[in-house]
């Protein structure tokens, strides 16, 4: 076993520039694989945090709306009672998990918090924000029903499903992770090609020794193991680097920068990156093992 590791080490030194290339390519490819995984984790995190909390807002008229929305001005108490009755109606009640009423004061408090530091906060007054029924649905994807139910109701200015905002963000994040996967797939293809070329070069350099091994009856496993180890070792180094890079990105970019810049968004933790690290390393090692085993098997088949 020890002699096999030594053989593998000698092989790596022989093809140094190839090995550096493999390390770099696996590093980049697995970093992108990891980035894609982390982006998906981020999406899930945001979904968990926001998606189920995402409610349908039934905005009531404030009196400040543009012409066609609220012809009767500010919502009256009768209108409010009617709206609440609709929410409790046979038609809608089974769809609704719960709803609550937000009055103007609470809305203003939330708004101030959300936009603190922005100019908008200084322009807006409590009575402009108006009152809202926040509706949580049993099946959050059925928001259309609520929108239709209140489309012509007096005193309702508009119905908004918060999920539509989130879906846009998720779309962008999904696009980014697809792009990362695209780069990763190309680079992984490249890594496989490089690993198999390196293994063949290594086998070619040792062809005399391999010939001797074969006629003294060395088993295929004994012959092939150093080559597979060689492939794995170079990929291992690249994948360790990739995992490290991801942890650093999460630490310095996500936790230190983004978390400060966007305090209201829930971001992935360093612990998430630490989970991804072994996944990536395992993936890189498996990939390298398979491609070098395949390459050496094809080379040694006579």
């Amino acid at each position, binding site marked *: 076993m020890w002699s096999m590791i030594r053989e593998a080490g000698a092989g790596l030194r022989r093809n140094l520039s190839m090995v550096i290339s493999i390390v770099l390519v696996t590093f980049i490819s697995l970093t992108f694989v990891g980035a894609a995984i982390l982006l998906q984790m981020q999406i899930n995190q945001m979904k968990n945090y926001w998606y189920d909390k995402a409610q349908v807002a039934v905005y009531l008229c404030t009196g400040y709306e543009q012409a066609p929305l609220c012809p009767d001005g500010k919502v009256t108490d009768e209108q409010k009672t009617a709206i609440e009755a609709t929410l409790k109606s046979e038609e809608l009640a089974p769809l609704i998990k719960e709803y609550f009423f937000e009055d103007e004061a609470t809305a203003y408090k939330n708004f101030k918090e959300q936009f603190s530091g922005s100019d908008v906060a200084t322009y807006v007054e409590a009575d402009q924000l108006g009152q809202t029924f926040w509706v949580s649905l049993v099946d959050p994807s059925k928001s259309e029903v609520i929108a239709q139910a209140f489309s012509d109701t007096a005193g309702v200015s508009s119905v908004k499903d918060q999920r539509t905002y989130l879906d846009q963000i998720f779309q962008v994040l999904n696009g980014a992770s697809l792009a990362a996967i695209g780069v990763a797939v190309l680079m992984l293809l490249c890594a496989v090609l490089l690993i198999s070329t390196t293994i063949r070069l290594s086998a070619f350099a040792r062809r005399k020794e391999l010939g001797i091994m074969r006629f003294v009856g060395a*088993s295929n496993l004994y012959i092939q193991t150093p080559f597979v180890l060689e492939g794995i070792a170079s990929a291992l180094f690249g994948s360790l680097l990739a995992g490290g890079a991801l942890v650093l990105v999460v630490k310095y970019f996500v936790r230190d920068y983004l978390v400060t810049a966007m305090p209201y968004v829930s971001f992935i933790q360093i612990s998430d990156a630490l989970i991804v690290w072994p996944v990536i390393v395992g993936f890189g090692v498996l990939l390298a093992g398979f491609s070098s085993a395949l390459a050496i098997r094809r080379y040694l088949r006579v």
Partner: protein
Amino acid sequence: MISFSGVTKQYRGTTKPALDNVSLNVDKGEFVFLVGASGSGKSTLLRLALKEEKATVGEIFILGQDVGAISSRKVPFYRRKLGVVFQDFRLLPNKTTYQNVAFALQATGKSRGFIQEAVPDVLKLVGLTGKEARMPHELSGGEQQRVALARAVVNKPAVLLADEPTGNLDPMTSQGIMALLERINAGGTTILMATHDTMIVDRMNKRVVELSAGHIVRDDEHSTYGGI
């Protein structure tokens, strides 16, 4: 021990078979010379016995095994039962005498303890005691061939295949190698040796099989190179 029956071997891309319907039986403990002009098929016959090549037609039984039927996974285990020596020694240039012999045992998965016992024994057998630490280039041709022989017999194979083992050696040195082979043969190992060397064949007075263009044209007990 070794039995070829109706064996034909045609290399891909050639028109004439290298071996053509060859049948040959070698008993346990025999010493057989394989002679014939260059290109007559001697090396091909040995290569088939080693399962380095597959016979196109015919059956080969060696040590009771149907060589054609051995799966490629089993080939290494089959080869461990054979010893092989070549004209060009085929030693690893960056390993010492001791390491070259030990390497064959490591590669077949022998324990460290076994190796430490077996290697000095076999080096003593071939007369290389004291030269364990020499590199191949520090050895004469005859000594290099002794290392190769030591490697071939360290596993105590029942059959030894030798392809012109004295081809690169001068007559005096060849003599020494032949004496060694005779000793190994006397120990019970069946030997099949391809050679061009008239003098050796004539002196040894063993069974001679002559190939010509892939056919066996002569098979005599206790014969000489040119004799009938």
